[in-house]
Structures are given as structure tokens and as C-alpha cells.
């Protein structure tokens, strides 16, 4: 299976490199055409790398959150994390207009982390823990954070531009404007090293302690990894919902949830879904582009609905 997924991944990568407004013929590359090489190195390859890292990062974030919260419908978009990162970014932009990318990143990250902690505190106080109730709460919570962000943007007269640049879009990704996304790479490595522990987290606090795992510290590491990924992706490409929800659920249905075994499949699946959504977005109204936030939101939203209707326990 991992082999078939890898082949699909390779095919999608090649397609992603070839498709675009600027015609790119492989023969030109072989002839050493400067234009062709420039398109490839300055635009197509950065875009592909950003897609792969974001896809892997978001699906891994989803699966980590699902293990911490012990709910299959939770992901950054359904737990307030994504909206909080947005809010943090906005505040850093207006309060510190001179701020460089890493300052913005830290703001977004801290907001995302704080929002996740508050979300966990809220659901721990709820007696009636229905599986579908928790993501619904998360969506409501996210909407509140989002309205705060929008109110703030409105007061600062940047509402329209904010809506534009916060919608996930990879067309902005060109050389020298996307390198922050590489911070997801160490996150992925750490997630692999911790895969076994995150699975134990998913068994709940008591069972984790009984197996000798420090529950709180492991959960904190998980939340930090999620916050880094979400904030880096929000700053570089904008918000992309549902990737972290759809892929882990599909993988769990077929391969279970033992992360040390399934994490590579989740990661590869996330990358494939995002590349696919991006290619779709580039073709739908060719030669123009639909932002990936819309295509991923559409594809992911429909799959989310199907999963709920199929009644995942």
C-alpha cells in the first residue's frame, strides 16, 4: 500500500511541476532553456515543496490532536487552533508593523498554543462527551476567535486584505518567500520519534500513567508541534482546513491508529491530498487559479460530512 501511495505521490509531484500558466516542456529543460529552468527553480519547485511540507504537517497535526483530545473529528480547524494563529498573526501585524517573519511566527504560535490549551480545558469540564459535540464546540470556539480577528481587522481597516491573504493560496509561494515552511521538517521528524508515545496518549491519561508515560509533558510536546506547524503554514500559505481530519480518518479505517505504523501513510496521504487540491485549483478556471483554501475546504468538507454520516464511533 505504501508503495502504491508513493507511486501516486510521485505522479502527482511530476504533474504539479508540469501544470501551470507558464508552459513548461521537458524538452526545453533538456535543452537548457534559462526561462524553463527559472520557472522550475523559482516557482514550481518551491511551490511543490511548500505543498508537500504543509500537507504532511497538517495531517500529522490532525492526528496528534486527535490522540491528545481522544476524538476523531478534531483538527486545527475544529479546535480553534487555526483561527487563533490567524488572530495572533493579525495582532502582530498591527501592533508591530515592522516585525519580521519570525516574530509573526512566534505570535501566531503562542496564540495557537494558548487556544489549544483553553480548548482542552473547556472539553475537560464537559460532563457529556459526545463524539460529535466536541468538534462542534471547537468550530464554535474557532468562530468566536475568528470574529474577534475580523472585528480587529475591521477596526484597523484591513478586513478585505486580511480575507484575501489568509485564505490558503500557494500561488504566492516563490523562491525567497516561503522558506519559513521548512520549520515543519523538524516537526515531522520529532513526530516520528514520538509516534509511539502519541499512540499511548490516545489511550487516555490513566492508561498512559500506568504504562509509565508522563502524560502532561508528552501532550505539551504534541501541542507545541501542532502550534509550530499551524502557524508556519498560516503565515506562508494561509489557512487550509480539514486536511488533518480527512486523511487520518481514512487511514484509521483501513490501517488502524498505531501511529508508529500509520504515521508514514498519514503523512504521504496529506501531501497527496494537498497536491491534488492544488492541481484542481490550477485547472478549474485555467489560466486563473482558485485558492487551495477553497478547494481543500470543499473536498475536505464533503469528506468530513460523509465520515460523520457513516457514523464513525
Amino acid at each position: 500500500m505504501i508503495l502504491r501511495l508513493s507511486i501516486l505521490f510521485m505522479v502527482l509531484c511530476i504533474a504539479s511541476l508540469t501544470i501551470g500558466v507558464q508552459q513548461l516542456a521537458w524538452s526545453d529543460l533538456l535543452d537548457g532553456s534559462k526561462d524553463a529552468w527559472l520557472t522550475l527553480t523559482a516557482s514550481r519547485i518551491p511551490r511543490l515543496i511548500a505543498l508537500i511540507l504543509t500537507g504532511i504537517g497538517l495531517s500529522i497535526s490532525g492526528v496528534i490532536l486527535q490522540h491528545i483530545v481522544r476524538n476523531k473529528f478534531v483538527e486545527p480547524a475544529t479546535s480553534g487552533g487555526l483561527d487563533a494563529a490567524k488572530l495572533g498573526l493579525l495582532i502582530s501585524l498591527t501592533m508591530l508593523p515592522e516585525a519580521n517573519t519570525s516574530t509573526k511566527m512566534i505570535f501566531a504560535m503562542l496564540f495557537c498554543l494558548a487556544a489549544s490549551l483553553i480548548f482542552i480545558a473547556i472539553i475537560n469540564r464537559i460532563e457529556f462527551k459526545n463524539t460529535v459535540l466536541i468538534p462542534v464546540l471547537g468550530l464554535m470556539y474557532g468562530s468566536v476567535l475568528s470574529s474577534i480577528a475580523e472585528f480587529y481587522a475591521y477596526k484597523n481597516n484591513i478586513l478585505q486584505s486580511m480575507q484575501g491573504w489568509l485564505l490558503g493560496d500557494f500561488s504566492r509561494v516563490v523562491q525567497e518567500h516561503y522558506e519559513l515552511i521548512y520549520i515543519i521538517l523538524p516537526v515531522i521528524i520529532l513526530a516520528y520519534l514520538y509516534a509511539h508515545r502519541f499512540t499511548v496518549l490516545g489511550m487516555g491519561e490513566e492508561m498512559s500513567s500506568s504504562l509509565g508515560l508522563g502524560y502532561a509533558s508528552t501532550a505539551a510536546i504534541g501541542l507545541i508541534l501542532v502550534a509550530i506547524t499551524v502557524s508556519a503554514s498560516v503565515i506562508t500559505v494561509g489557512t487550509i482546513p480539514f486536511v488533518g481530519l480527512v486523511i487520518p480518518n481514512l487511514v484509521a479505517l483501513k490501517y488502524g491508529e498505531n501511529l508508529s505504523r500509520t504515521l508514514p501513510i498519514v503523512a504521504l496521504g496529506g501531501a497527496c491530498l494537498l497536491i491534488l487540491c492544488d492541481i484542481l485549483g490550477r485547472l478549474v478556471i485555467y489560466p486563473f487559479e482558485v485558492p487551495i483554501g477553497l478547494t481543500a475546504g470543499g473536498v475536505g468538507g464533503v469528506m468530513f460530512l460523509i465520515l460523520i454520516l457513516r457514523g464513525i464511533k
Partner: protein
Amino acid sequence: MITVQNLNKVYGTKSVLTDISLTFPTAGITSLIGPNGAGKSTLLMIIAKLLEPSSGHVSFNSRQISDIKTAEYAHRVATLRQSPGFNLRLTVEELISFGRFPYSRGHLTQDDKKIIEESIEFLDLQHLRNSYLDELSGGQRQMAFLAMTIAQKTDVLLLDEPLNNLDMRHAVQIMQALRRLCDEQGRTVLLVIHDINFAANYSDHIIALKNGTLKFNGTSEQVITETNLKSLYELDFEIIRSKHGCLCNYFNL
């Protein structure tokens, strides 16, 4: 050896455990019995280091358990609670292999694999090893969780109502497995149990709690008497002994 001294647990103004002091016997099955709200599970969770006592001490082999790290304690004491919220999609074999987590932290050695195999065989779970937990019956699930706890290879096993919601066949299977665990491997099993007949017939030792205080503590024969049970449960009892064991009848009296 586990000893508790002047243990108290208070929730708000409600006292759940009051001044409990006792030494738990080593090797063999010890059952904690008593009516609902007696504090049995609370006592078990404090010993498991999953709950902090309000006052008092618990020691394991003369060391305070509060001084023992969670990771180290997991080498000595394994705890199995009721897990209705457990919704991870794992196969039986994967679950059991997590019993080795305290030692392997994720990288199973040959030794770990051997112990996992032994635990599967010990409970006859070979035919279920590749089934997912959410596809099993309650009894099969409980057997899988028990196998995981056994694979943890601790001297002491703490089980909170392991027979809850099980049919008679699975309940007997689990008690027989615990019996073998003590008799063949010399482990200590401490369990909270509601069915007085299972407690009477499979335990070496019985500890009875009522309203958070220690009521009786002794061998199975010493504790299981008509007068003791009557004062414990406020019900009339008739104890019928035969060569296969005893039957505590509390119906139609």
C-alpha cells in the same frame, strides 16, 4: 509488598476513605469488596499512583510511592481500569505490545516480542491477534486488555472491576487466568470485585471496606461468613459450602 498508613481521601467535604492502614499480602489474589461507595476503587487508584491521597502514605517495598517515578513504577505495578472511552483502533496484538512500552519505549526487542507471544498464548488469544478492538465483544476486549497488563511483567497487577459487564464464561476465564498468574508465576493480583461469589471462590485474601473504613481483612475463609457479610451488605446471607467451593446466597431469605 504494599503497605498503606493512615490513608485519607476527601472530595470537597465528603470523606471517601477514612484512616485506612493495612498491609497487602504478597503473591496470590486479594479481592477488595464492599457495597457501592465504599471507596474500593479510590483505594486501588491511590495505590496505582493515579490518585493523590488527601493524607497518609503508601509504600511499595518500604519506599514511598510518591518518591517513585511514574516510569519506574510502571515496571513494578500494572493497572487496568474500566475503559469505556477507549476508542483507538488497534489490533489485539498491537494493544498487547503496548504492555512492553515501559521497557521498550517503542522499540521492541526480541525479548519483548517473546513476552508478547507468551501473553497472547497465556490467554488463548491467537485467533484474535489481528482483529481490531472495536470489532470484539466486551469479554474478548477485556481479555485483550488483561493480556496487555500481563505483558507489562510487573510483580503486582491492580484490576478495577475486571468482570464488569462480562458473561459468566468470560468472567470465569478471567478469574482462572488470574489464578494461574499467581500460582504459576508468583505474581500479586489486587482487584476490586462486585460479585461476592467470584471473590469467595477465587481469592486467597479478602479486604472489605464500608463507607470508607476498613471493615474486614483476612483470608477468604475468615472473611466469608454469614455474620460478616450481613453486616457488610445489610442483607441476609446463607453460605452453602461444597467440595467445589462455596456459594453465598442472598436471594429469597
